């Protein structure tokens, strides 16, 4: 039953990805000033939204780990697995944002990069979560999960700063597409539909790989626990 449900979810996700691509490339019209290069937006913005969501999941997992690590060790391990999965998959999406953004910027502004507030805070966010993963990969000892949870909490503080950066400061980055005042929002219905389908598609895809990353980490925890138990029995 579980396998059928997963298979169905994968099929729906693949269909959504195909449909989102079709909408972005063939249905949405060319934007008046940026022309075809504006279609990068349909992958760039949903990736940023999904990255923010997954960093929030990582934050919740980190808080959960610190809350349960003494009272409920099993819950703490589950929380830690979510924290790691959220950070890692979020970083993949954040990497997409940092690559597709400069590709768009080169066509729209004539430059690959500028040190404005939105771009710089996004790069800082990427560096924080890269250091989070490097810490988990290379540090050893019983405190690694605790240190990672603390870093995960502080890293997530950058997410609202990234989100609000082009409201707080004057930036080269375009004004907020949504929630940026009466003039914000996508006016063309076909463009809006293409955007919404791609948000849905990337969210479905993101949740799929998030679930897989979580399952891999839980399995890793169980293997590590079994190995520790064997080592204790042999000693």
């Amino acid at each position: 039953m579980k396998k059928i449900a997963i298979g169905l979810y994968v099929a729906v996700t693949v269909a959504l990805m195909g449909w989102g691509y079709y909408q972005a490339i063939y249905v949405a019209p060319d934007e008046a000033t940026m022309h075809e290069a504006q279609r990068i937006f349909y992958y760039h913005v949903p990736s940023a939204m999904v990255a923010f969501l997954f960093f929030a999941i990582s934050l919740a997992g980190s808080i959960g780990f610190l809350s349960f690590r003494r009272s409920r060790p099993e819950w703490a391990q589950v929380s830690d697995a979510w924290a790691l999965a959220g950070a890692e998959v979020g970083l993949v999406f954040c990497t997409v944002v940092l690559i597709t953004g400069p590709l768009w910027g080169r066509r729209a502004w004539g430059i690959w990069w500028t040190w404005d507030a939105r771009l710089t805070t996004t790069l800082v966010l990427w560096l924080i979560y890269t250091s989070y993963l490097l810490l988990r990969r290379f540090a050893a000892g019983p405190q690694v999960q605790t240190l990672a949870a603390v870093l995960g909490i502080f890293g997530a503080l950058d997410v609202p700063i990234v989100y609000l950066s082009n409201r707080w400061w004057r930036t080269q980055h375009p004004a907020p597409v949504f929630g940026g005042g009466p003039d914000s929002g996508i006016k063309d219905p076909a463009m809006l539909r293409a955007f919404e389908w791609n948000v849905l598609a990337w969210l479905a895809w993101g949740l799929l790989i998030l679930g897989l990353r979580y399952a891999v980490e839980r399995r890793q925890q169980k293997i590590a626990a079994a190995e520790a138990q064997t080592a204790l029995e042999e000693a």
Partner: protein
Amino acid sequence: MDQRAIMDHQFVVAAYAITWILQLGYLAWLGAKWRAQQRASGNRRQS
């Protein structure tokens, strides 16, 4: 197609292709990790 339109098209293709290479590459890495875990737990059961 003028030069600008060709360049725009190439940049869109690059953005979409890089996105998919990253996402599918990560999925492949996860799959490899999953299979390695399966092999490791199989070996443990045998020993």
